[in-house]
């Protein structure tokens, strides 16, 4: 029986350096809405509306929020599956915001993506080995068949899959194993950043832990590997991330460390989100504060003026509907965008 470190070492020890890997400044992604006879643009879905973020090398940033808050869109902008309509994304010192697909292609091996649905994200007509090896072929990382096979085999072992299963097809694997294949594919190009878009939410409870542990092991094994962990499940994000950014309607409302977030949530939305998560502990549940938000998330087509949360906020003052709050650094690695705080 091997001894296991009870807790993951903090970022500073794990990361190769603490310099900034990804620098996002005021990122905007507005999708046009076309209607009418001539499909004229009648409005915009402001999926991401001014997100500013920095991710250090080797750091894991959790991006949490409810559906439609823009967290997936942020991920897709970073991996340039979408071309942002505003702002700037710098990856490793290079501005990638408006690179053409051709220019960006060589950089793709540095930023890979793990998708949510382990069923839809693997080509059903490709063998597991060929799915995992695809990036090697695309980026011409290997010279001959043998190197290729060795590399793919190593990847299989790395994610806990038997290399003998390389010739099998996705439908022959269980959900958890499929997600491992997806992870192996994401690792193939030896990326510096992996964007995990809800990597465990489609899996069974008992399988989720396997995948989370695997992702944590990979982070410890490769120095400098960073994650953007997008999820709606706050407990998973809190467990996994070095810092957590809470998103609401296209903007980040609070960004801090997991401990601070739980002990000292400052934004009213973060508080509501925390209270909505149930803890498997009946006695604790009986005493926890339950904040039930009024109404629904407004449409990102016509977001409310000022602070987009003001209409549902118990602390709102008239000022909140006029001024857009910006993220304020309160020290202790804690930033929050609320007029009533700080």
């Amino acid at each position, binding site marked *: 029986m091997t001894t296991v*470190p009870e807790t993951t070492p903090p970022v500073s020890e794990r990361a190769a350096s603490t310099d900034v890997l990804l620098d996002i400044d005021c990122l905007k992604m507005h999708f046009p809405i076309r209607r009418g006879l001539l499909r004229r643009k009648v409005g915009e879905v402001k999926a991401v509306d001014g997100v500013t973020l920095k991710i250090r090398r080797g750091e894991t940033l959790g991006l949490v929020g409810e559906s439609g808050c823009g967290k997936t869109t942020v991920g897709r902008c970073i991996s340039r599956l979408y071309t942002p309509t505003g702002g700037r994304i710098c990856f490793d010192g290079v501005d990638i915001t408006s690179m053409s697909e051709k220019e960006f292609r060589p950089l793709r091996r540095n930023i890979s993506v793990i998708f949510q649905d382990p069923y839809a994200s693997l080509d059903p007509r490709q063998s597991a080995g060929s799915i995992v090896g695809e990036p090697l072929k695309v980026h011409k990382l290997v010279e001959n068949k043998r190197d290729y096979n060795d590399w793919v085999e190593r990847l299989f072992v790395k994610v806990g899959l038997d290399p003998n299963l390389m010739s099998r097809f996705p439908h022959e694997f*269980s959900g958890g194993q499929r997600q491992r294949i997806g992870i192996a594919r994401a690792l193939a190009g030896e990326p510096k950043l992996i964007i995990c878009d809800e990597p465990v939410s489609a899996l069974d409870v008992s399988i989720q832990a396997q995948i989370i542990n695997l992702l944590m092991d990979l982070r410890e094994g490769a120095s400098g590997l960073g994650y953007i962990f997008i999820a709606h499940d706050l407990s998973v994000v809190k*467990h*996994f991330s070095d810092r957590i950014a809470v998103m609401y309607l296209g903007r980040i409302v609070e960004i801090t460390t997991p*401990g601070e977030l739980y002990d000292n949530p400052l934004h009213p939305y973060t508080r509501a989100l925390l*209270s909505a998560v*149930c803890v498997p502990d009946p006695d604790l*549940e009986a005493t926890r504060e339950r904040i039930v938000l009024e109404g629904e998330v407004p449409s990102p087509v016509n977001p409310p003026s000022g602070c987009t949360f003001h209409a549902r906020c118990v602390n709102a003052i008239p000022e909140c509907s006029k001024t857009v709050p910006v993220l304020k650094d309160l020290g202790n690695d804690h930033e929050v965008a609320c007029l009533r705080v700080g």
Partner: protein
Amino acid sequence: MNALPTACEVRPAVELLRVDNLQTEFRVEEGVVRAVNGVSYTVDEREIVGIVGESGCGKSVSQLSVMQLVRNPGRIVGGEVWFEGHNLLKYRASSPQMREIRGAKISMIFQEPMTSLNPVLTIGRQLTESLELHLGMTKKEARARAAELLDSVGIPSAQSRLDDYPHQFSGGMRQRVMIAIGVACRPKMVIADEPTTALDCTTQAQLLELMLSSIEGCQGALVLVTHNLGVVARYAHRIYIMYAGRIVEQGLCRDIFYRPRHPYTIGLLKSVPRLDEERGRRLVPIDGTPPNLIDLPPTCAFLPRCAVAGERCRLEPWPELEPIDGEGHMARCYMMEATGE
């Protein structure tokens, strides 16, 4: 903050539903899937019962079997469902007796708010049809009542929204409509099959509270089917844990969470990250994958994934539910001495 009964509160029990040795199977190409394999449980009046398990463990099928709504190729092949002195399985699925119970005495709220409402009928029509059927209301009365119901589940300008179609509602709003339909005839019992799984965190919280207060309002019992341990910890009085078509552990809420005895229950509790714990605890996953339910061996279905399995587990068939300490606390395991730390 809330006037709801806290979980685990002790209340006098008047039995409402008793399910005895229920068996449902699906005959498919590859063989027979015993989706529900001898499940027994009870629900008391005004009680909140949680049924917890992973996908494919038979928790939904068992509930559909109670309502006799299992689809082809599924068939209920054995067991009894006692409700108000009648064994419901004696009635044919489409019999008048069964129809009088469905929607009126026992109603069901389904998982998928996006697909559970008929896209070509107005919300009003879908709400009024059970009112007209079970409560004998006229069209006009039913419409007035439907508007009240919509209002009570928190849908603004309810009267005018009666004529809207489901696609004009958001997911959360549709689930509110489903709740309104569920409690329309003031049923004795509501079965909620993963009612909030498809929804967002804060919407989930909104809807669970709403559902509970609505059911409280009509003095009904609730069977809450879910995979989320946190939800049952917050709301359920009693909990049944299901695995591979059987109940593996049952008991009061606190017994399940503080004194779990089945290795599966223990595994589940250890494998989920918790909001209140220190960051970075290494999760202890349950190894392997849930079993394929076709032609299961007679031994314990959890055996291949079990960390404490002993010789007896490999040789003898799946054990019966054994009572343990605590009121009604039972588990289906030979190794309970090992799990009883």
